[in-house]
């Protein structure tokens, strides 16, 4: 019995050493021979598409196995945050450029090779190169391969029923259209929203839609550059007017309600006549609401004639800790090829970016896809992306949190001073976050 204690102690020590070595990340060099390239994404349709693309790639490269793994969106953020600094992330990470930027900024992401960047320069829209560039060093840090471009879906039957010709070109016209499209029951409850606005939901999406829907048109910006640093860009008339538009839609013109079924689901159920979203909705409607007759129009302009939309570029990045960088970049380059870009647009619905690819077969089946593709290059309709600074996601998410509360306060619709005070308070928080990262312009 006296010997039991030391023996158990030795067993625990051995188990402990084994456990530590199992978790220890190896930082060795590139792996040679047959390799596996893992790819992480949080978009189900894209995961399936990359899997199919992977099969084609593996047929041409038998030494490489492509493993495409899907995570729920929030889980993906957490997974990457924990695994990337620990050197345990995938070899290819599918993230928006602005999402992967903080990791590049802190030294976890490798720079793409020149031959991959050359594909971007040759065949992709110029704004993608801007999105993929580190504003500090001027170097490329990721490779965009599809875009989350937002435009307006509208139900053509509802428009015809309301006697509406054409589509709205300005925010004011959009509101007038929405008033004619809105339907109510006997108790005054909205049964069909003329204009579906994103009023709730987790993450930064609510503010993204707000930025796209109104701020761009009013020429209002979450952050603006000043003397090489940044400051909140919306604590002014443009920001106040942006919020006022939403509040008027809900409480004054009542073209949208807090409890209407929203988003693609709402549009598919004909609970709304217009809403803003990305091209993946085309595939969603084909599957879930094939009888809906719809089309797409470009985001309306503001009262000063300012227009445009948000298109956050989604990219793939290779961590510094990856042991199969060469294979990962090579597969990434394969994803940029015209054939695979058509496949991405077709199978996932997410909008590809290779302008040399021939998408005509897709347009025949779904004309809306052509409108999205053309929108990338319309004069007076620039495509904007998020700024590449580390705290950008936190800034947007915190504004989203507070906006969602604001949308439910009817007082803000009529009390302009209170509305302005709220916007100013949001801006203070934005500036505090910038200050935490030593990015605030003094």
């Amino acid at each position: 019995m006296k010997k039991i204690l030391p023996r158990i102690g030795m067993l625990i020590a051995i188990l402990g050493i084994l456990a530590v070595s199992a978790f220890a990340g190896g930082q060795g060099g590139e792996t040679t021979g047959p390799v596996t390239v893992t790819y992480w994404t949080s978009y189900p349709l894209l995961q399936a598409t990359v899997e199919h693309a992977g099969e084609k790639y593996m047929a041409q490269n038998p030494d490489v196995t492509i493993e495409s793994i899907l995570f729920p969106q929030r889980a993906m953020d957490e997974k990457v945050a924990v695994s990337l600094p620990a050197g345990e992330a995938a070899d290819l990470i599918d993230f928006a450029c602005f999402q992967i930027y903080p990791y590049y900024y802190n030294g976890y992401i490798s720079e793409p090779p020149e031959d991959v960047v050359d594909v971007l320069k040759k065949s992709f829209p110029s704004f993608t190169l801007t999105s993929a560039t580190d504003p500090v060093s001027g170097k490329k840090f990721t490779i965009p391969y599809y875009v989350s471009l937002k435009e307006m879906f509208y139900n053509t039957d509802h428009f015809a029923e309301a006697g509406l010709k054409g589509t709205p070109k300005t925010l004011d016209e959009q509101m007038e259209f929405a008033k004619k499209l809105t339907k109510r029951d006997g108790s005054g409850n909205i049964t069909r929203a003329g204009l579906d606005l994103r009023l709730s939901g987790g993450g930064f999406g609510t503010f993204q839609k707000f930025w796209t829907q109104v701020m761009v048109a009013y020429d209002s910006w979450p952050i603006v550059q000043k003397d090489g640093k940044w400051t909140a860009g919306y604590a002014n008339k443009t920001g106040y007017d942006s919020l006022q538009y939403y509040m008027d839609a809900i409480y004054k013109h009542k073209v949208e309600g807090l409890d209407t079924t929203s988003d693609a689901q709402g549009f598919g159920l004909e609970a709304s006549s217009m809403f803003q979203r990305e091209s993946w909705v085309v595939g969603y409607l084909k599957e879930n609401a094939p009888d809906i007759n719809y089309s797409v129009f470009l985001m309306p302009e503001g009262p000063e004639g300012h227009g445009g939309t948000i298109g956050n570029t989604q990219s793939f990045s290779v961590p510094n800790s990856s042991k199969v960088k060469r294979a990962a970049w090579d597969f990434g380059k394969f994803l940029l090829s015209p054939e695979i870009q058509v496949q991405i647009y077709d199978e996932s619905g997410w909008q590809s970016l290779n302008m040399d690819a021939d998408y005509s077969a897709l347009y025949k089946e779904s004309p809306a896809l052509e409108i999205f593709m053309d929108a990338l290059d319309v004069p007076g309709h620039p495509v904007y992306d998020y700024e590449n600074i580390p705290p950008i996601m936190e800034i947007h998410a915190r504004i989203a949190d507070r906006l969602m509360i604001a949308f439910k306060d009817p007082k803000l619709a009529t009390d302009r001073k209170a509305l302005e005070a709220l916007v100013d308070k949001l801006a203070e928080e934005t500036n505090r976050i910038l200050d935490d990262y030593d990015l605030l312009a003094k």
Partner: protein
Amino acid sequence: MLNAVIGAPGSIRRNKAYFIMAVFLPVVFLFLVVRIIPIISTLALSFTNYHMQRPVRKFVGLENFIRLFSDDIFHTSLLNSLQFVLVALPAEIILGLAIALMLNSKLRAEGYFQTLFFIPYILPMVPAAIIWQWIYAPGTFGLANFFLEKLGFQRVGWLIDSNIALNAIIVMHVWKNLGFFIVIFLVGLKDIPNDFRDAALVDGATAWQRIWRVELPIIRPVILFTSVMASIWALSAFTEVYIMTQGTDVSTGVEISVLVFQIYVEGFRYFRMGYSSAICLVLFVISMLLVLIQFRLFREK
């Protein structure tokens, strides 16, 4: 002194002591690794500016706590958590006790009713929360509003109206846990020797007097146990808040945020682990205080 406690070297008593220590050592080791070390680590992190995306960890003293107490979202979370406790705790105790008393009154098919009440408790929280999210869905797509409109009432923004949303989630929380409390109370009530009830009957006590003056005082330790469990579960509510604030048709998570949800948001959405750890510490202190208060209230006089 050691010899007095565990016996002299070579003695059977000492050998037994060694054996017991050896058996418990792995368990203690696991407990240290899984419980104690993370708690100490969280405590230490709460005084740093640790951010998961940045390889920097600097001691910042009380800065996190100072920011916490001027953060109105933290205030909202704190008040919501306290509201959760103030509503869920009495609801679970009173309803649990009332139903247990009814089931204890020699009801026919008692086993059947016990099972029925216990089923929600064993249902995993995630599917239960999703089901309730559908029940509370806005417009007439949700079951709750569907029946309300059929009965001639106005539909309600169950998860949209901030005045209602948290209470709607508390209803779900109480529904989910009630079965556990019913079973615990039932066990306590069945444990009371019948002599006490017979004596009360002989003394001419009414049913209510028997319950109030005989049964409840005897099951006081059981009430303390359930009260502590109910308050800890209410304070640590997260899954139901997280699940029922997902999607684009529901209320913001911020308005109905509770402390654990805020810990998650700060730590895993904004990756501010130092700040999130500070909220953990505050929650820990509040939980301890609440438990101490309950022990004091329920202590034997």
